[in-house]
């Protein structure tokens, strides 16, 4: 079951009715049951993985919590010198760290197994011959990357004493398995979500309406825009040997919009569905194509992944004595500025390689990580030079023209990054780059050639219209809550908007016979 399957709507309706029928204090149980049913639809072994992972983290966190609680109590009640207290804290800290490390290691092992298990079995089959390891199958639990990161963040927060461990295993499991966010995130933090999940929410008409509107907008982005563009993109890159020239540029630009519409569409559906139950998920997208720099882009795109890496990888690395030692050594050898730059280069480089690996295990994903890491490191380390150059060229950075230029530049940078990952292999990306130079004919934009790649003229016109709508809605959202603005309109206009949006998805959506859009692009992670 995904957000796009017909059965999901029946499932959602039933969950909605039951949720608001049962007493407030029991409503979290309805969500837990619904989430288990939702997850079970992906398979029984899959749910065992997630339940065992959450049991592991629940147990580890409780253990850490118990150690801390005992330490606090004993230190409070007992007579200890300052050194004794310090030693006791250090000893408990070490124990907790061992628990943390062991649990995180297990979680990462499972994640690694899911990520590269298929590749390992494939390689074994190639080496040993057909039929030798066919009995082996990799079970990939739904949303494994997302819930693993959520679990690690929870465990780290408990270890850092940022929050207390959850005592009720079932409530904790609900946080892990909550169905709107399990497919593609956001990577929720326990402290932001858990309380909302269990407190029970009364029916609120406005909130339900808002949730439905957001979900509808998500379906529009996914079914009308993303899946339509996917036809074109898949045709071009799926048969890249047959094409050359500008068509790859067009396909890459459209692929960027496609990915945004797909991923942010899914997030809107998840957030909208969650809002119906009164639960606000973390924001995962903030109109990234309005970003004026690479760093800003990644603060607006897949926000929860970015903040996760910042909080649990980047910051620990920045304060890590090892990184400091390396920086000091470099400082002595190459000067203060280079030493300071190392404090950016090392953590940022590691974060981006890991971000690449989170997305996939091929060389292209490592290259993609290095590409983005390189851009961000360059723009950070050479920020003074860039500022000087801007001043030297007398560029007024406050003009809208400059801002638009920066947005377009960021979009193009994103598109180049997209070109590294779309073809599937680094070798293919290089082939495509080579083929762009062959028969570069700009007239294909005007002579109807574009209609030969799966989208006819009518569909292309529709693409243009929907991209304009996407841009206009994003602009309005950027300036304030669009749903509040709609709610302020009179009923005829308001309902007309709802009906038009609903039937636009229904009519222009790419679904049904002949379409295979049961998955979202980011579901594979």
């Amino acid at each position, binding site marked *: 079951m995904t957000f796009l399957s*017909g059965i999901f709507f029946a499932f959602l309706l039933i969950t909605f009715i039951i949720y608001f029928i049962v007493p407030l204090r029991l409503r979290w149980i309805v969500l837990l049951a619904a989430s288990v049913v939702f997850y079970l639809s992906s398979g029984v072994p899959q749910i065992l993985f997630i339940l065992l992972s959450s049991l592991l983290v629940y147990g580890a966190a409780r253990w850490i919590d118990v150690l801390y609680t005992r330490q606090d109590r004993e230190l409070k009640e007992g007579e200890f010198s300052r050194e004794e207290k310090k030693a006791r804290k250090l000893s408990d800290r070490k124990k907790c760290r061992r628990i943390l490390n062991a649990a995180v290691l297990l979680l990462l092992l499972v994640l690694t197994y899911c990520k590269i298990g298929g590749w390992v079995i494939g390689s074994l089959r190639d080496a040993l011959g057909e039929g030798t390891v066919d009995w082996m199958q990799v079970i990939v639990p739904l949303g494994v990357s997302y819930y693993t990161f959520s679990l690690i963040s929870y465990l780290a927060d408990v270890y850092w004493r940022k929050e207390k461990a959850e005592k009720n295993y079932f409530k904790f499991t609900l946080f892990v398995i909550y169905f709107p966010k399990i497919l593609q995130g956001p990577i929720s933090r326990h402290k932001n979500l858990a309380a909302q999940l269990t407190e029970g929410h009364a029916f609120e008409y406005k909130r339900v309406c808002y949730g439905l509107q957001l979900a509808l907008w998500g379906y529009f982005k996914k079914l009308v825009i993303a899946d339509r563009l996917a036809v074109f993109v898949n045709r071009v890159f799926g048969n890249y040997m047959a094409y050359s020239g500008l068509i790859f540029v067009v396909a890459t630009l459209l692929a960027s919009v496609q990915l945004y519409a797909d991923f942010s569409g899914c997030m809107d559906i998840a957030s909208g569905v969650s809002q119906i139950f009164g639960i606000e998920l973390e924001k995962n997208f903030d109109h990234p194509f309005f970003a004026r720099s690479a760093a800003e882009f990644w603060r607006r795109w897949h926000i929860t992944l970015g903040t996760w890496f910042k909080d649990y990888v980047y910051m620990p690395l920045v304060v890590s004595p090892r990184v400091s030692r390396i920086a000091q050594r470099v400082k002595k050898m190459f000067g203060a500025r280079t030493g300071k730059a190392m404090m950016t280069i090392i953590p940022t480089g590691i974060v981006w390689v890991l971000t690449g690996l989170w997305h996939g295990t091929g060389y292209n994903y490592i290259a993609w990580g290095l590409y983005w890491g390189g851009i961000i490191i360059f723009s950070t380390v050479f920020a003074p030079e860039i500022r000087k150059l801007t001043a030297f060229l007398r560029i007024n950075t406050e003009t809208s023209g400059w801002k638009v230029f920066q947005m377009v530049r960021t979009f193009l940078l994103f598109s180049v990054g997209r070109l590294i990952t779309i073809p599937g292999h680094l070798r293919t990306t290089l082939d495509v780059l080579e083929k762009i130079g062959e028969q570069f004919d700009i007239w294909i934009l005007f002579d109807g050639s574009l209609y030969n790649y799966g989208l006819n003229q009518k569909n292309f016109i529709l693409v243009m219209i929907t991209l304009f709508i996407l841009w206009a809605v994003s602009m309005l959202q950027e300036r304030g809550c669009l749903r509040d603005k709609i709610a302020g309109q009179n009923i005829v206009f308001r309902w007309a908007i709802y009906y038009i949006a*609903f039937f636009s998805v229904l*009519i222009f959506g790419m679904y*049904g016979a002949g379409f295979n859009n049961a998955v979202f692009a980011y579901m594979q992670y």
Partner: protein
Amino acid sequence: MKRIIIRSLSFSIILLVLFNIVSEILKKPKNSQWDTSGLEYTNKYPGLFDVVFSGTSITIMNVSSEELYTEYGIAAVTLGEPEQPMFLTYYTLLEALNYQSPKVVFLDINSLFYSESMLRNKINDYEHYYLHFSLDSIRNPIIKYEAFQAAKELKPDLDIFNYFSSIYYNHSNWEELGKTNFIRKSGKQVMNGYFMSFTIAEGLAKLRDSIDIDYAENVNEEELLDFNKTYLMKIVELCKEKNVQLVFLRGGGIDTALTSEKYNTINKIAIDNDIPFIDMLQHDKEMGFDWRFDASDGNHFNIMGAKKWTDYLGDYLINNYRFEDRRDDSRYKFLEEEVDRYQNALAVMQTKIDLLSAINFEQYLNALKAVDTSKNTIFISVSDDASKNLSKKDCDKLSELGLTYNLMDKFRYSYLAVLDNHTSRDLLEDCGVTLDGELDNGSRYQLSSGGYSSGVLASIRVDGLELIQGGRGINIVVYNKEYGEVLSSVYFDTFLYENPPTMRRINVDIVQEQYETSANVWSSVDDVLVQD
């Protein structure tokens, strides 16, 4: 809270209404050829039909329910979809018998011998087409679901939403939205579930003679697929339960002629269950079926063939069962209203046969003279030269049609004529000429003619489609305005030193087929040479 409930209900009701409207608009209009929807009639006129025909396209095209009404006063309806497997025939019949209590059900047994792979292939092929025809016409959701489940036995990955949500299946039709999506009309050739064909397939007479229908020589049987037999027996049981007389019918043409083994199989089931079994091929001579003109292909009959076969069945019904004459019953107004249209269609078919029967210029001109130009239009265009070998007699015959100009001695002239609504419009010039205009049915025509020194061309286009080959001499097209049918397309080479002139008849059915598909007419014209 009350306000919220009222508001939500209002919103939902409007949404449902809009949903239905949009679903209807987006429904792909069936190809007019198959837009029969017999089940619509059984649901619309409950309890009125005495006879039901059920089965495949053979049922749709070969039996004329209107003929039964006109000639015998029997109210019949035709249920059927192209190549409909037996299990779907069962479910459509089950749906129909919820609304009707007929005395007799004729079951077309053509699909009984489908093999498992054939059935699977058909379901595969039908996923976006034929399976929909059957399932979409079933209104009862339980019957529809059971039919869907039966189809799933053959193709387990069928998507239920494709069949239970019209908009789910049809939504991508927005790309082809047209007038027909907003104004729903039954096809002109459709009548109470019966599809009237005007096509004439030639060359079948000899084939018919080669078929041996002496089944008695062989006693072997062909084994039936369990799946088909199960549903056949379900139909038998259903009819028994509803107290309806079931009759097995093999009513197709020569392509689906039964082998002895198949005949014996079906005959045994018929005998075991006390069911009459009628095979058309055993009675075609008796009914005066003319294989030169009455079949539209190897399996299907045109309106003239259907009339003969239906008359035979009408006699059978009258002789074996009692029926009330429905012709004066006001409840059957919907059948009475179709009588004129049906008779007119028969007249159109007769005109076509008459024109086709002519084998020389003189005979053709005689047949042309009999054409009613209030319903048909005659187009004439000359290419190269039409006068060199044209006799005075020929010219007089042409003049009798009502033409203004005489082609006699007009060597290498260009000439065009349109005979429509008992008036003529013609042009004769020694340079190239063109003529265009609009017919009563809204169709537009464009004619061109070029003599030897003016391009050597002849063109007769209706709604942009070329209808002639453009041969040397006189090119003639007879076009029926009501049905958009090309009744005849010929040319006579009146330049050659031959008397009477050579007639080259273009296979009008191929022209018609091209007309339907808007393809290039001349890519596959069958040039039939008839020399007297």
